[in-house]
């Protein structure tokens, strides 16, 4: 090892020497401002002058790196098989060497100029112990998954996919920075691995993203979310829809005069405010108290903990404002966030910048104008990063123009592009992408909440995500549980369980056999409190919602041809039936049915029923009609159907007092008894129908409950037909097809088999066949084929004979030993005999068949040869 290192050093040194001149110029360029220049000049000359100095520095540099205490990380060198890694991992290209030179130079200048700042994180070692510049570790990649096209998807993926491990030394950047391919393979990494991978993905999908080396809070560095509320529990702020007040119209009526006392109102308002303020104060106090509890044990290392995250600058991909992404949690933060305590440096795949601004106030005052050399010191010149601030642009334009004109050529020469990344193409296989979290499971602890995630199909009931919310910060008392499901055959999407009330709400995706959308219940027993909502476009009867309590059932409809909108049924107690054969369901007695209807535009308002109440116990029917236009009262009608027989026992058909009505605009024909009688008959019929429908609804509820129970029991998962991996059917089909294809291919090969090839090969190549040769070839071929047929026949014959002989021997043996044989042996012998007979019979058949087929085959070949284009001409003339 030691020797190797030295060798490498030597190599490096030699290369450095060669490139020294060229390197020094561009590297020094950015710093050549003001008086800082002088000391570097000296240093640089020194490097050119003596090789010893160079080596010295080299060693010093190495020394710096060695001082980083190497704590055993989980991905140790032993676990990584270095030998299989490509050579770009194991060595540096000349460009990379050059770059390292530049970086080295830069770092020296930097440490000279800013002796009080920590050394730069420029070229950590990779998994093969080769120093690699951080920018070249970023490998911009666009993944072939639509989920990874946007930043939030990328961040979520990275945070899910890798499991976090803390930095070996929380106060220093790590000594090693592995390639993203290795990190992906082992699904583990520290914050630098996380941010490098995320940065690669983000730059690949077009974001202006940067890895940041800086300082974060303890929570951030240790991925401790227990003080953060879960993002899933935070309700999205309701966008306040300020209704645009239409300007008062010219002739708008004046509102009636307000006669209430202003003074009283004022007093009332004041009182309310006071109460509110009091409440607020109490709440604030409470919060403060809680916060105190929370913030106990402040971090002694606050502000010193090294962390790495990703900065996304505005501009590209329609990002309106720059923001940070914490790769551990996939959360985005504004640069003003208190978790981010400072930035040392940042880099992307093209360049490296050092923050020259003071971070006394976290990152709140930082200006991310990377083109401004006062605020951000860059490593390489020439990577385009336009200055954003236009403040002193004015003064500089002239001189700059001048400079550009003059120095354009020189600049070009000096420009040094970042070498291409040494990391191999990042690849994520679909299986791994779907499994996501290591082992497909991940648990995150939030403040008063716990989030668990699983890969799809990992749980047999399709559970993919579970969020438990707790009442107390210690997470002992569960408040509610939300479970998300995927690929369920019953289309269950989300189950929300409230532990306090015991209320369970199931949400379904479209496609449930009963068109269920939401089902909220406390128990699966019928005739309890429950609400079912349906997908209205699916149901033929237009039902959208059914609410149940132990005594009532309310249904809401929409878009029905009979304009029914609402039906409310009151049930009475169940009547005990004496008959025991309870195959028929025993419906409860119905006390009252209320139905409401939408306005039917085809009917006049006076004939369009708005509400219909069947008071079944009182034998009354109440009708309320729709309100006419420009009216405030509606017609009403009430039918009594109690008296069927009068005092003398005569059947009463209809008397005026059986129907009392109020009509807004009395009309002639509705007064008639006949009309009333017909209406009542109609209503009676409809009452029957309504009761039947109520009964059917009850049955349907029972059916749905049964179905739900069965579904819960079975919890089968559906597999998309596009899911080639899981769908057994399609897999079989595909395999069958492949097999068929393979066979076809074989046949084709056979068809293309050239019978003449071996014989033609004997002849001198490239010459035309003479007739004699053609005949000869044909004969040869035929004779060869004949020989083969004979051989085959002989072979079959030989086997046949062998088989027969063996059988005979066995039979002989049997006859000799028949007396001494056990039953077992006899069985064995018999089975052998039958098998042998079978074999013999088959061989016999084959032989016969061969004998039959051989002449035909021979003839076929002859014909084929005659038709062969190479021989046909010659043979034809011959024939």
């Amino acid at each position, binding site marked *: 090892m030691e020797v190797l290192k030295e060798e490498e050093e030597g190599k490096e040194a030699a290369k450095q020497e060669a490139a020294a001149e060229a390197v020094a110029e561009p590297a020094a360029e950015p710093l050549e401002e003001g008086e800082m220049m002088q000391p570097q000049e000296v240093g640089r000359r020194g490097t050119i002058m003596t090789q010893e100095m160079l080596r010295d520095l080299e060693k010093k540099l190495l020394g710096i790196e060695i001082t980083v205490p190497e704590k055993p990380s989980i991905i140790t060198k032993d676990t990584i098989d270095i030998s299989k890694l490509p050579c770009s991992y194991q060595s540096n290209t000349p460009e990379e060497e050059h770059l390292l030179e530049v970086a080295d130079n830069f770092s020296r200048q930097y440490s000279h100029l800013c002796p009080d700042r920590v050394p730069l994180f420029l070229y950590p070692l990779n998994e093969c112990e080769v120093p690699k510049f951080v920018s070249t570790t970023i490998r911009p990649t666009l993944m072939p998954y639509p989920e990874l096209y946007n930043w939030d998807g990328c961040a979520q993926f990275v945070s899910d996919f890798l499991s976090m491990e803390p930095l070996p030394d929380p106060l220093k950047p790590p000594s090693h920075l592995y390639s993203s391919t290795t990190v992906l393979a082992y699904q583990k990494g520290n914050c630098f691995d996380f941010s490098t991978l995320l940065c690669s993905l983000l730059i690949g999908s077009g974001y202006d993203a940067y890895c940041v080396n800086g300082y974060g809070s303890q929570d951030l560095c240790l991925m401790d979310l227990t003080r953060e509320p879960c993002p899933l529990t935070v309700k999205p702020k309701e966008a306040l829809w300020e209704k645009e007040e239409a300007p008062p119209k010219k002739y*708008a*009526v004046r509102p009636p005069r307000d006669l209430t006392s202003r003074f009283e109102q004022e007093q009332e308002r004041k009182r309310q405010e006071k109460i509110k303020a009091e409440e607020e104060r109490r709440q604030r106090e409470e919060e403060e108290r809680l916060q105190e509890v929370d913030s106990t044990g402040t971090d002694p290392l606050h502000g010193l903990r090294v962390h790495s995250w990703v900065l996304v600058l505005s501009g590209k991909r329609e990002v309106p404002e720059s923001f940070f992404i914490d790769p551990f949690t996939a959360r985005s933060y504004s640069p003003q966030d208190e978790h981010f305590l400072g930035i040392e440096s940042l880099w992307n795949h093209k360049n490296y910048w050092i923050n020259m601004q003071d971070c006394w106030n976290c990152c709140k005052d930082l200006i991310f104008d990377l083109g401004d050399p006062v605020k951000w010191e860059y490593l390489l010149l020439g990577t385009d990063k336009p200055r954003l601030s236009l403040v002193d642009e004015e003064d500089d334009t002239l001189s700059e123009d001048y400079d550009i004109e003059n120095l354009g050529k020189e600049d070009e020469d000096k420009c040094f592009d970042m070498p291409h990344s040494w990391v191999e193409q990042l690849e994520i296989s679909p299986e791994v992408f779907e499994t996501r979290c290591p082992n497909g499971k991940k648990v995150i602890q939030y403040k008063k909440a716990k989030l668990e995630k699983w890969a799809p199909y990992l749980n047999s009931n399709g559970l993919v995500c579970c969020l438990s919310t707790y009442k107390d910060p210690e997470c002992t008392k569960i408040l509610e549980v939300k479970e998300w499901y995927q690929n369920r055959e019953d289309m269950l999407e989300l189950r929300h369980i409230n532990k306090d009330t015991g209320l369970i709400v199931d949400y379904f995706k479209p496609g449930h056999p009963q068109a269920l959308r939401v089902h909220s219940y406390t128990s699966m027993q019928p005739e309890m409190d429950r609400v079912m909502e349906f997908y209205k476009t699916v149901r033929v009867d237009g039902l959208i919602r059914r609410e149940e309590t132990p005594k009532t059932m309310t249904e809401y409809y929409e878009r029905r041809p009979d304009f029914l909108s609402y039906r409310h049924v009151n049930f009475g107690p169940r009547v005990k039936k004496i008959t025991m054969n309870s195959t028929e369901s025993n419906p409860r007695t119905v006390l009252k049915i209320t139905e409401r209807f939408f306005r039917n535009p085809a009917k006049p308002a006076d004939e369009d029923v708005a509400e219909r109440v069947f008071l079944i116990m009182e034998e009354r029917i109440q009708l309320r009609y729709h*309100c006419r236009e*420009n009216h*405030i009262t509606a017609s009403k009608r009430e039918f009594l159907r109690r008296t069927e027989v009068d005092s003398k026992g005569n059947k009463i*058909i209809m008397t005026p007092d059986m129907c009392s009505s109020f009509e807004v605009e009395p009309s002639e024909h509705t007064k008639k*008894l006949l009309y009333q009688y*017909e209406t009542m008959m109609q209503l009676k019929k409809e009452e029957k129908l309504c009761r039947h429908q109520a009964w059917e609804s009850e049955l349907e509820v029972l059916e749905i409950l049964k179905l739900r129970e069965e579904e819960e029991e079975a919890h089968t998962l559906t597999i998309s037909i596009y899911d080639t991996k899981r769908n057994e059917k399609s897999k079989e089909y595909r395999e069958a097809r492949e097999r068929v294809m393979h066979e076809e291919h074989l046949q084709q090969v056979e068809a293309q088999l050239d019978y003449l090839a071996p014989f033609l090969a004997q002849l001198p190549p490239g010459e035309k066949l003479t007739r004699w040769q053609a005949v000869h070839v044909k004969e040869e071929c035929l004779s060869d084929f004949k020989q083969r047929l004979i051989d085959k026949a002989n072979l079959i014959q030989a086997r046949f004979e062998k088989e027969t002989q063996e059988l005979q021997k066995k039979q002989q043996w049997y006859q000799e030993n028949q007396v001494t044989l056990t039953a077992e042996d006899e069985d064995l012998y018999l089975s052998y005999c039958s098998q042998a007979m079978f074999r013999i019979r088959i061989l016999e058949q084959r032989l016969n068949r061969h004998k039959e087929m051989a002449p035909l085959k021979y003839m076929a070949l002859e014909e084929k040869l005659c038709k062969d284009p190479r021989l046909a001409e010659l043979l034809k003339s011959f024939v």
Partner: protein
Amino acid sequence: MNRLYNSLEPRVMDDDMLKLAVGEQGPQEEAGLLARQEGILFKDVLSLQLDFQNILRIDNLWQFENLRKLQLDNNVIERIEGLEKLTHLVWLDLSFNNIEAIEGLDTLVNLEDLSLFNNRISKIDSLDALVKLQIIYLRQFKNLRALSLSGNPIAEAEDYNMFILAYLPDLVYLDSRHIDDHMKGLAELKHQFSIDELKHRENLIQARLEDEQARREELEEHKAAFVEHLNGPFLFDSMYAEDVEGNKLACLHGAGELLEAYKDKFVVICVNIFEYGLKQQEKRKVELDTFNECVQEAIQENQGQGKRRIAEFEEKHLLSLSAIRDESELSNLEKKIVECSKDISELFNTLMTLEMQLVEQLEETINMFERNIIDLVGLFIENVQSLMAQCRDLENHHHEKLLEIAISALEKMVKGELEEDLPDEVRALFVDKDTVVNAVGSSHDIHLLKIDNREDELVTRVNSWCTHLVDKIHKDEIMRNRRRVKEINQYIDHMQNELDNLECSDIID
């Protein structure tokens, strides 16, 4: 049943026959009893069957306004008549009669099924023009879907089927048989030429009607703006239409050009008036629309409040009513009834207050609108008058010029220097100065009169429109108020009655 199949005596459709038929075919069983008690009005009958009655003439059916289905088969009817009032008729059966022509059905626009089976609808020569007209006559019934004509001489024509299918493409059943698309296609092909011609003619008529309609509408619009016939030289032309002298004088040398120039200027002013009028009309319309919209909004809001109040009341009222029914103690009962009636009167008060409030609000708004619209009209009149004054100025100017020309012409004529050939009647004017001046003056007078008349007409009409509008608004508001008050009273009375009835029955109990 007194169906006299063999009797050759034709019968008359009289009241008795109709009553009998209605009674027989009306509601049965219990409902029939009720119906007999009350009697059935002919206008409530929806379907009527009058077969095998030996009817000769259709008559006395005018009362059956709402009849949908009428069966007059197996009679001896000779003409289709007396069906004009049955506009709702959908189903008409006239088979087995002696009808000779399809006629008298013009008002039955809803007709869907027409059966003329076994009649005497004749052919003279095979499908001649007259018969064709019979079929084309049926084209006006857009809803006709079923037709049966077989058993008529007409149906014996060789391409009877084809002909009918081609000319009545919306038909679904012909002679009780469903028409298949194939036959329809064939028929169409066969008679394509004549049908196209027919369609073309119909389209032309339609287009002409539409054109006329559009023109009429435009004129209406202009009339609404009170500036009709001002977008051209109509006024000018009318000025000269009755002006004999003026036309004569136009022949004078120089008068023609003068007249042309005058006309141009005059027409420009007229068009100005026209455009101004349209603009003002638009303004008035916007004003009126805004007003109507606002009033409607206010009324709707008020109605909404009223409905809410009533709904609240009814909810409470129902509860208290049932409580009263269940109450047995007399003192409690009385207390509750009193409470209930108090509720009713309270509702009455709130509803009336609401209504009064609305009336006040609307009154204010209407007054404001009235002021504004009167202002608008005033402004319009003022501007039109000033424009008309310009017209008059022009006329005066023209008059002076014409006078000059006339006098100079007279002088020339007196001197005998007039070289042009003037018609004799014009020459007759130039006898002396007075005659000439009189002629020019009278022409001028006529012109001024015309202009004045037009102006007066405009002003009176616009004013009357304005007063009419305002009156109507006031009247409508009053009517609305009365209706609402009546409605409220009716409702409250009903409620009170209900309560009283309850009281009575309770006391009786």
